[in-house]
């Protein structure tokens, strides 16, 4: 089971309403390389990981990604709540507004809804761990593009922190890949 901790993993502030930036940032909520995809990918792959260590790593990183999903939601929420209809229209967020008002929904920056086809669960732990390492790099790249797009230093601060977490996760998945490879090799010796 999971327990909710009534705090953000990292403090979030925004300088003011900025639906244009929200429209970009929301891709890390429901886009192909976003936090929902990351979390669900690891949490569903963990059932068929072969060792206690690899199961622990996928459980813990999958859980941390849920906390990141909440941070991204807090950013989008903060950037949209005070926004006027004029600002929303100018930001090209009117299509989103028609469907969701200012509610949070799992879409990328262009409004494409989240789909399970963004993720894979292959049963082969070597394959899955490679996918996860690639996923962390894709998320890191996305945060770098968002940092380029951001015109709010408070938001940039949070994006930089999230980017760093992807680097750490990549490192941990790499170590897990080596460990699983060694474990599988050891089982081949009779």
């Amino acid at each position, binding site marked *: 089971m999971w327990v909710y901790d*009534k705090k953000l993993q990292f403090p979030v*502030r925004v300088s003011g309403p900025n639906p244009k930036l929200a429209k970009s940032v929301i891709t890390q909520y429901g886009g192909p390389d976003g936090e929902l995809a990351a979390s669900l990918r690891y949490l569903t792959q963990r059932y068929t990981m072969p060792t206690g*260590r690899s199961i*622990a790593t996928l459980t*813990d990183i999958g859980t941390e990604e849920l906390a990141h999903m909440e941070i991204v939601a807090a950013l989008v929420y903060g950037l949209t709540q005070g926004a006027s209809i004029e600002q929303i229209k100018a930001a090209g967020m009117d299509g989103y507004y028609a469907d969701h008002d200012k509610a949070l929904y799992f879409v990328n920056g262009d409004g494409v809804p989240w789909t399970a086809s963004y993720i894979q669960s292959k049963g082969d732990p070597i394959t899955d761990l490679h996918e996860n390492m690639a996923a962390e790099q894709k998320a890191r790249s996305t945060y770098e593009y968002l940092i380029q797009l951001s015109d709010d230093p408070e938001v940039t601060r949070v994006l930089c922190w999230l980017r760093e977490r992807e680097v750490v996760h990549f490192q941990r998945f790499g170590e897990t890949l080596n460990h699983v490879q060694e474990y599988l090799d050891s089982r081949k010796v009779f």
Partner: protein
Amino acid sequence: MNCDHQREQLLERIQALSFSAVDLNLYLDTHPCDLRALTDYNQISSVLLQTKAIYEQLYGPMLNFGLSSGGCDSFRWVEEPWPWQIGAGRVY
């Protein structure tokens, strides 16, 4: 205002401690026999628990489902702000 500032400071202390615990936890997942990291993890966990107890005494439970006290007069879990709600340009 002053009270808000105090809350913010205490919360940021908890966020920092909790982050250290998360990061050490992930490190220990792949280095479970690193005793130095394990000692750090245990130490930080106990300080985090103490700090959370102080926060919860003042502002209500951070955890639900029986993992924090629910309060005396009313169930403080339901009290705002929730973590994403802005207070004076700030999200808790």
